């Protein structure tokens, strides 16, 4: 074989030129590679087209629109940084920004604690565990409008069951909940924690099942009590899931919209106005799409920065 190969490679030989056989193999390989690539692309293309048309291109358009004064009809006029400088003097934007942080600062840890508690509770052999898991997940799949209507009734200051209960246990001046500028935000936070804890519980449950049982056994052998086992085995084992949950939860909190829109519509006054709702108002109600886009870019930047910080923190903890 070697001789033949050498012969074939010798100059002037009839047949395929130098590197003949390898080229043949390469051509076939390249063809296969191209074929595989095309097949690969054709698998993701339907999804990618949808993503590009409905998400990617609009996002790029958003950045462009945020530098214009576009009002839906007609051409957009380039206004440079006007929209962004306007943000700094806009008290309503600042109010919405503050309220968004107010909501997130309470909503994230409370949901995390509630869903982790539920997950730990329902991660054991318990009679009817599937039933309880379903119950905990139920709020998440219930229509947000129905949730808002029912909770609003529960929160009703005069006749709502919550305040009737509070009065019964001796609180004479129960809060006005969604009808009071002070209590509307706590009420919304409460409902959203209740609504979302089931979903994050599910993610954490999945995470809990990946923590190896041997570790618990070893910890027990070493005489670790329940608290120590939780702190030194469960939590470190859950770290990847926790990271995912925290990132998702943070982004979800920053862009909270539907629940607030139907529960309080930002009120009373501007007490529960959040950024997404402000974007909706400026854009779809007042037709100031340029300015609304600038607010969206601000929201995007906030989400991005917070997520980057979380990534860095996670990396650091990992090493």
């Amino acid at each position, binding site marked *: 074989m070697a001789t033949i190969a050498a012969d074939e490679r010798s100059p002037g030989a009839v047949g395929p030129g130098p590197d003949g056989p390898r080229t043949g193999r390469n051509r076939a390989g390249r063809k296969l590679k191209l074929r595989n690539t095309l097949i690969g692309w054709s698998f993701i293309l*339907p999804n990618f087209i949808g993503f590009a048309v409905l998400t990617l291109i609009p996002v790029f358009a958003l950045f462009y629109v945020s530098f214009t004064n576009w009002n*839906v009809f*007609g051409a957009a006029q380039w206004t440079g940084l006007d929209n962004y400088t306007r943000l700094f003097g806009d008290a309503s934007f600042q109010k919405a920004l503050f309220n968004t942080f107010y909501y997130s600062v309470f909503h994230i840890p409370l949901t995390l604690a509630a869903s982790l508690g539920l997950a730990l509770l329902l991660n054991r052999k318990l009679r009817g565990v599937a039933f309880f898991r379903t119950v905990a997940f139920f709020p998440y799949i219930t229509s947000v409008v129905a949730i808002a209507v029912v909770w609003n009734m529960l929160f009703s200051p*005069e006749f*709502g069951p919550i305040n009737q209960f509070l009065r019964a246990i001796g609180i004479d001046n129960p809060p006005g909940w969604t*009808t009071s500028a002070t209590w509307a935000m706590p009420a919304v936070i409460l409902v959203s924690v209740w609504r979302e804890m089931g979903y994050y519980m599910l993610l954490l449950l999945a995470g809990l099942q990946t923590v190896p049982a041997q570790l618990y056994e070893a910890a027990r052998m070493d005489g670790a009590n329940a608290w120590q086992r939780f702190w030194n085995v469960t939590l470190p084992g859950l770290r990847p899931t926790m990271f995912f949950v925290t990132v998702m939860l943070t982004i979800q909190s920053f862009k909270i919209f539907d629940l607030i829109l139907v529960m309080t519509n930002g009120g009373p006054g501007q007490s529960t106005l959040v950024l997404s709702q402000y974007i909706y108002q400026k854009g779809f109600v007042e037709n100031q799409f340029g300015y609304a886009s600038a607010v969206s870019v601000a929201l995007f930047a906030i989400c991005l920065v917070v997520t980057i910080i979380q990534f860095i923190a996670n990396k650091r903890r990992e090493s």
Partner: protein
Amino acid sequence: MKRKTPVLIGMTAALALTLTACSGDDGGSDTPPAAEGPVTLTLAGWSLSSTPEFQTLADAFNEENPDVTVEVQEYAAGDDYDTQMTADLAAGTAPDVYVLKNLKNFFTYQSGGQLLDVSEVTGALDPSTGGLDAYEADGASYAVPYRQDSWVLYYNQDMFDEAGVDQPDGSWTWDDYEQAANDLTDGLEGDARGTYQHSWQSTVQGFALAQSGGALDTADYGYLEPFYDRVLDLQDSGAQVDFGTITTNSLTYQAEFGTQKAAMLPMGSWYVATLIAQQASGEADEFAWGLAPIPQVDSSTTGTDATPVTFGDPTGLGINAGIDEEKIQAAQDFLAFAAGEGGANALAEIGITPALLGDDVVDTYFGLEGMPTDDLTRFAFSTHETLPENPVGASTAIVQNILGDLHSAVMSESTSVADAISEAEARAANEAGIS
């Protein structure tokens, strides 16, 4: 290769969609050649199953003009109507003729070049048509009003008698109204109250704007104060259910007045048809009711020999600027019909308040079964100066949002009236650029 076929189909479809969506042509300036033969116009409407006015107009027009068929296209109800219409207009897929639900968004459509100049149609209409001049801009007219609701006072005659309170006689100021509301609450048994003002900002601000000569685009909203003081008093005395209960329990004005939980209800004239229908179906109780002119600020506009001032936006029809040229004539004919005598009669027959209130039309309206026939009701329905709730202007939508926040802050008693007003004024200056 087979695997790529669906992708190709998908891409072709996407391309085709994109191309057709962009093919909206702009209306030419030449005199439109009228189409030969049958024409089909499209008309926007909402909640078609419960809002028969669009189909009624379409059918009535088709009867007179067999060559023109009007097809009604369903759009979202409520505030979403304008959102959806805006999107369709921008995409060039909106119907030939569309409804201007209120005046708030007229400015956006008109300044955005989405409405055809219909001055010719407007010029030929009866000048007494309500809301005719609301659609003027730059010396031209861009829509015609076919419907003009205005706010009146509904009252339950049985409950007035039961409480021993004198029924309204057309001479009421807001002080008389407040007094009556308190007297009714005291005189009525059970938890029935004197009056019900719904949670909308217009139930306070609409009257304040129309009756005290205020304006939205001045950043001076002090005129709201006496109106809010009165409503808060009513709320505190229990003559009116409080704002928090309305919003948290999703109370409806139809149920509050229809099931006799309140003896009075300031509301738009659109509720007449609903009330009649609900009394017939049993959804509302059987009781004698009537309409009275809305209470006035002072006695200069009260009494049946004066013209009471109230508010209400006309509902208009405009022609999409992107309409096919050969359809323009038919669309203009439709507008003239809808805003004229023919449309007005057809609407009055189904209990809708037309913009043109001739004697014939009022007779048709009062011929409805279940309609009260006393003189005061007739007076309240047909005589009033109706000022717009949303005077047309660039800042109207923004200011109404700001005043909406003021409304919920004041009504929930989270903020004092004076503080809320100065906050709204500051915001109007900042967000709408009004100084």
